[in-house]
């Protein structure tokens, strides 16, 4: 039996969304990233992220607990870099400060238990997870893929998240700034920003 390679694409994927790992998607080693199920050089993924953000009608960045609370110096630096990225590409910021299941307004807040409802209520077409623990990130990204057509991007602190359509691994403030620079370059090249010098 010939099995087609599984693609991690915008949904809605279905009633029970298959887990990408169970469908054969393998996480990349250091220096590489995941794009829709394929392992690619990191620069290629960075370019795609910038492209998706610049062309989004309604993008949202969801910072998670790993870059909030100023719990480490690196977290504060990463948070500042994410804020700069959001401002550069005009994305909204919807924090996910914790993972508790609690009574919230899913149209206004996001949690890993019903992120799809938040995405649908706000018509977000591109969603970036940053600084989330991978168990909760993957769980939420699978729900988004299952129930919405949103394009998902994960900027992971550790090993990448295969449930996102694009995922970088080992993300620190420097890598986030690289994405911001790429967004600025693209804007400049397409005439959005005045070229310097």
């Amino acid at each position, binding site marked *: 039996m010939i099995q087609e390679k599984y693609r991690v694409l915008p949904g809605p994927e279905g009633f029970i969304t298959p887990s990408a790992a169970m469908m054969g998607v393998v996480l990349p080693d250091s220096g590489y990233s995941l794009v829709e199920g394929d392992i690619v050089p990191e620069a290629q993924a960075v370019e795609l992220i910038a492209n998706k953000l610049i062309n989004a009608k309604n993008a949202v960045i969801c910072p998670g*607990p790993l870059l909030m609370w100023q719990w480490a110096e690196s977290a504060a630096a990463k948070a500042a870099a994410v804020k700069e990225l959001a401002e550069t590409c005009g994305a909204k910021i919807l924090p996910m400060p914790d993972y508790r299941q609690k009574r919230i307004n899913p149209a206004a807040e996001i949690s890993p238990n019903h992120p799809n409802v938040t995405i649908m209520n706000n018509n977000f077409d591109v969603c970036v997870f940053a600084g989330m623990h991978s168990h*909760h990130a993957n769980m939420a990204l699978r729900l988004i893929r299952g129930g919405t057509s949103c394009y998902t991007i994960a900027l992971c602190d550790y090993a990448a998240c295969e449930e996102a359509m694009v995922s970088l691994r080992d993300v620190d403030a420097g890598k986030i700034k690289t994405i911001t620079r790429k967004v600025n370059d693209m804007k400049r090249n397409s005439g959005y920003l005045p070229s310097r010098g």
Partner: protein
Amino acid sequence: MSNEQKSVGAYNLLFEAERERAFITGSEAVSEAVKRANIDMAIAYPITPQSESMHLVGDLYAQGYLKDYYRAENEFAVMAAIHGAALGGGRVFTATSGPGTLRAMEMFPVWAGSRQPVVCAFMCRGVALPPSIQPENIEMAFLLDTGMLMFHAENAQDYFDMILAAYAITEQPEVHLPVGVFADGFFVTHTREVVMLPPDNLKLDSYNSDYSPVPPFDMENPPARVTRDPLLNKSNFVSYAASASWHQEVLAAAERSRKYIDRFLGGSIEIENGDADILIIASGTAVSQSREAVKAMKLEGIDAGLIKVKSVRPFPEKEIAAATANASIILVPEFNAGGWLCREVKAAIDNNSRVVAGPRVFGGMPMPGEIIVDEVKKALAKSGGAVKR
């Protein structure tokens, strides 16, 4: 003393450090692994045949190799408390056997569901069907779908290596699941054999609980304090879907462990004479007995090969399907009456009428190589000479 040991990476400890011969029991091999594992906390409750190993771990605590150790009220209390220690960010170890495994059963999926890298050694024995303290590994059948990774040691050397490898595999942030390291009780735990050990002045690097797919349970410091509640179902579709996605993540984590099993266990299976038309697939001490049977058959002119299954979860479906693609007879000898390994093999391969389900021994019965050879001869006779000898 732990503070006199040098911290090294798992690969160095397992594969690069020079080793010396020791003539020790399987229980002592467990203790030697714990001595080098830089463990924060171990909790014990005695049960045969596990008691000696956790007694020896207690001695290690007295010598300063562990930060904490105590005897809990029963096995359920052990597994619940060890879960708490893992949630708090500690590297932990415990062990149990047979009825102790069943008594603690509720906690094993809890470990997996909360993504805690607990390492537990299981010294398998009979449960109570009828009551028996003798060797058999039926308890492994009950654990197959708890979400934990399961490695099956053939001998004391495997037991030592697999316990250390378990930490290296499970502490990867994309894996982070409990690991059961199993050995057939008495056969492995109570017999003495040569085990090659790295120096005991080396230990694994410390566990970094921040390098994790879930926050550690530090109620004082962010960002961990925000994880107070596990996902509990409300009666609505959104909650059901979230719970299903959570469960899928546990299964996905096991899938991700495969590349680290290749790195730190040298693969999930080992194949000897894999081109043979007759293949024996076994795990645990049934591998040793099967190896003797293969040798005996060779003397009689029967060409048979052996597949040793080291990782039961995740199960090496693809590897076994590929390794058995050209075999005509596949024999699965087991130390239990249920035949859990046989079911796994049958589900993994095409044309599973090739599988001979047995021989199986239990209740403490040994597995002489002769009964494996007899099963092969019966299968050969049934094939009417269609199988290459």
